[in-house]
């Protein structure tokens, strides 16, 4: 059994690592859900008009000239019937207020209309050709909807028609989507119009105009802003800023610049890097076999130099420690200090950048993602290794005599990452 404080620290550390992992998994699963849904057949409620555009081409023969009014009338009529249908459905809801079952069907019916209208808007922009063919639909639709329309007050029809025309006149003609929606909404069981899958018809999608405009303006502005930045460093503005900062410093009456937590962390990070670089060099020097006295002397000088630098780094660390430790801790009602910037260097921090990341194949993307995770995992492992070393090694060395089970467990944790165990055998001289 481990002592209580040691246990608490170890468990806290490991639990933190587990929680971080769980958080990533959660986010990943959410993205997976969305992506999977996108790649399946899209549900009718969200189905787009590309199928409406394609469908009419096969149904042109249905066009019966006798009952076909002019195109403008057809549009009006279609919108009118749509409105009537909604009115009917609304009536159904109010009359069956208690029945919960109806509510979802109303919703799905209504959903069918609005997404149909909006989502189809994008694909209609290029699809002018489709509108003529789709007019064949109103004939069918009208016949189907005259029955429920009877109950509707007549006086609202003309205004509805006008209103609808004004409302949609500004954009491309859109009788098509409404027609399809009637199919979906009227027949309670959807007749399963041609399903939409991303695989087959993905390249037909188009983003809405308003959205496109906003997005392109967004990327243009970001490009301007990021290109404007480097220029700053060479002109009067930068000088003015530096002057201001200096004035702030002198006006404060403090002797030297205050160390911010961020700077301390950055310096500690640099010193850690220094340590690993020094160690690398030391290894190189020690492993090189000197052939003559010059090389040997050089090796010696280098090692001594490395030692001196290590001493200086250590001294700096001790200074930093003293500076940190002497600041009195004051209670603050809301405990959390602000987050120190990450160790990656660069002033901006891990913020979004307008620069794109181009990949050329699934394989490449997978490699990239896997490597990222591997680096994160390794970094966590290194950190945990250091923590475990700090906690467990003193334990083992302090026990007299060291317990076998503990030794074995510690060895597996520290030296094999917990993956393998060693075997301990009793060397009993009695048997032989």
């Amino acid at each position, binding site marked *: 059994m481990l002592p209580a404080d040691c246990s608490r620290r170890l468990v806290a550390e490991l639990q933190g690592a587990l929680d971080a992992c769980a958080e990533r998994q959660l986010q990943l699963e959410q993205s997976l859900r969305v992506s999977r849904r996108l790649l399946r057949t899209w549900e009718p409620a969200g189905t787009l008009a590309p199928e409406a555009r394609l469908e009419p081409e096969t149904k042109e023969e249905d066009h019966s000239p006798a009952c076909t009014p002019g195109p403008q009338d057809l549009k009006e009529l279609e919108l009118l019937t749509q409105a009537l249908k909604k009115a009917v459905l609304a009536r159904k809801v109010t009359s069956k207020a208690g029945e919960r079952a109806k509510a979802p069907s109303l919703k799905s019916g209504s959903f069918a209309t609005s997404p149909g209208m*909006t989502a189809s808007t994008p694909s209609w922009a290029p699809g002018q050709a489709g509108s003529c063919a789709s007019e064949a639909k109103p004939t069918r639709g009208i016949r189907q909807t005259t029955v429920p329309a009877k109950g509707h007050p007549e006086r609202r029809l003309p205004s509805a028609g006008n209103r609808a025309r004004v409302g949609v006149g500004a954009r491309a003609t859109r009788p098509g989507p409404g027609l399809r929606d009637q199919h979906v909404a009227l027949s309670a069981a959807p007749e399963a119009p041609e399903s939409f899958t991303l695989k087959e018809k993905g390249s037909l999608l188009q983003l809405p105009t308003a959205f496109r405009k906003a997005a392109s303006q967004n990327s243009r502005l970001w490009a301007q802003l990021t290109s404007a930045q480097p220029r700053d460093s060479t002109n009067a503005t930068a000088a003015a800023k530096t002057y201001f900062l200096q004035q702030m410093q002198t006006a404060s009456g403090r002797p030297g610049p205050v160390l911010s937590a961020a700077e301390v962390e950055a310096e500690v990070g640099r010193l850690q890097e220094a340590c690993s670089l020094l160690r690398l060099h030391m290894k190189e020097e020690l492993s090189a076999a000197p052939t003559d006295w010059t090389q040997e002397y050089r090796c010696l000088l280098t090692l001594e130099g490395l030692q001196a630098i290590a001493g200086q780094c250590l001294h700096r660390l001790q200074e930093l420690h003293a500076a940190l430790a002497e600041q009195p801790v004051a209670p603050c009602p809301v405990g959390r200090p602000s987050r120190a910037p990450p160790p990656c260097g660069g002033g901006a921090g891990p913020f979004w950048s307008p620069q794109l990341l181009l990949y050329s194949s699934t394989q490449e993307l997978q490699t990239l993602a896997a490597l990222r995770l591997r680096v994160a995992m390794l970094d966590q492992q290194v950190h945990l290794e250091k923590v475990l070393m700090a906690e467990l090694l003193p334990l083992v060395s302090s026990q007299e005599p060291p317990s076998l089970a503990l030794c074995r467990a510690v060895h597996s944790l520290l030296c094999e990452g917990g993956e393998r165990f060693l075997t301990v055998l009793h060397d009993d001289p009695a048997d032989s």
Partner: protein
Amino acid sequence: MGRRRRLVDPAAEAGAGALPKVIAALSRSLPAGPSPEIFRRAKFDRPEAPALWQLLFRLLSPRSADGASASLALEAQVCLVKSALRSQGYPRLVLAQLPEDGSRGSRELLLALSWLLARGPLPEQLLAQAHVQLGDEIPVCECEALASPGPRVPHVEAEGPVDIRCVQWLMGRLRFRWRCLIASQQEQCTLLSKIHLYTRGCHSDQRLGHLSVAETEMLRDPEGGQQGCGGGVGQSLDLAYPKSLHSGQVPEASGMMCGWCACGWVSAHPPGSLLEMQPSLCTSCALGCFAFQLLRRLERENTGLEAALEWRRGELVFWRWMDTVLGACPPEAPAAATQPTFLPRIAERGLGRLELAARELRALQEELCEATGRRRAAWEARVGGQGRGPQWSSARQALQKAVEQELAALRWAWEQDRGPARPHGPHRLVRCEDEAPGGQHLRAAEVIQALRSQEACLEAALRRLQGQCRQELARLAGALPGLIWILPPRC
């Protein structure tokens, strides 16, 4: 007096018009920016402090805490601002001495804001933080993940002593979770790649060429609503829409019913307005729709970006004005630097890291000491008292110089701040098969290379640590006679 005035006026007039505009631009580019009037009055320390405290709080608080922290009382915000500024190294002590109720100190707060602005590109950083992510973003480095957000309260507290097997079990669980994570990530990559492939040719922006998950999701289900959206596009914001969208007219009842709430108030939305995207919804339902919200956020960001550009163009005027503000402050007596009332608690993690670094350096120093001692002794034994004459001493000097230069270069390697050339942060993924040199864009191959070298470094570090442990444990085990330790086979 009059003559002097006349001389001063033209210059002042030239600046007078520009300054309010620049301040207004600054205010628009910051979230929750106060009106320019507040800035002007702050120079004279007029009591408009709460607005400035809140602005600073908004700027300095960690992004993730936005939702919860918006409701913090003013006193708590004041405290946090003070501690955050202090931990960033704010030089002036007057700030720390301001009253906690946040009623005074607008001039000092103005100075603090300017200090933050001078130190870094604050508006750009904030805009990038709040950027509407339309694409599939992937971070190219792990710094966001590696800098864990401070001491987190573990929900599983170990009560009392714990068996080492519990620790082993936790480690095993961790390994398993990582494996699951990697597997899920691979699947996500495949799906992403497919979506990008299938929507090729759809995007209006030629550089991108295909839709992202977020954009496709918006087309699939523009209403989205509360079900959430993919790819991090967004939590819904408050629905208080700006006046500019409101047509100002009472919508006439039409025969059309709102597709969502079945009211009869669907009116013709003005062409070119954002509401136009949802013609079959009444205004309030249209505003709640996911696609519309996305658009609104984009528009808001565009406004902020334009304001930031305007600010950048004219900020010199602002800095000149700030010099006058600083001049208007009473000089701070050095004796006042006695006991600051509030100091931040440097995150314990910082101290912990320092300890670990110190430990490593000490270990390194010991090894070096040992190695150099041996070598020096061997050298002395070899060369001994044989003075080798002038040739020898000149050669020695040359060697010393060479070694010094090498070591100086070595020092430079870590003392130099890493240049901004290394990209990091989330980037939008774009599938692009042609081999043309990306120029301004990152290629996956480069990132992979950088990650591989990082991986190699970390693996080496891990192996080294494990080796150290092995040695140490072998030493301890040596104390137990009569046992054979069979190490597991290295695979």
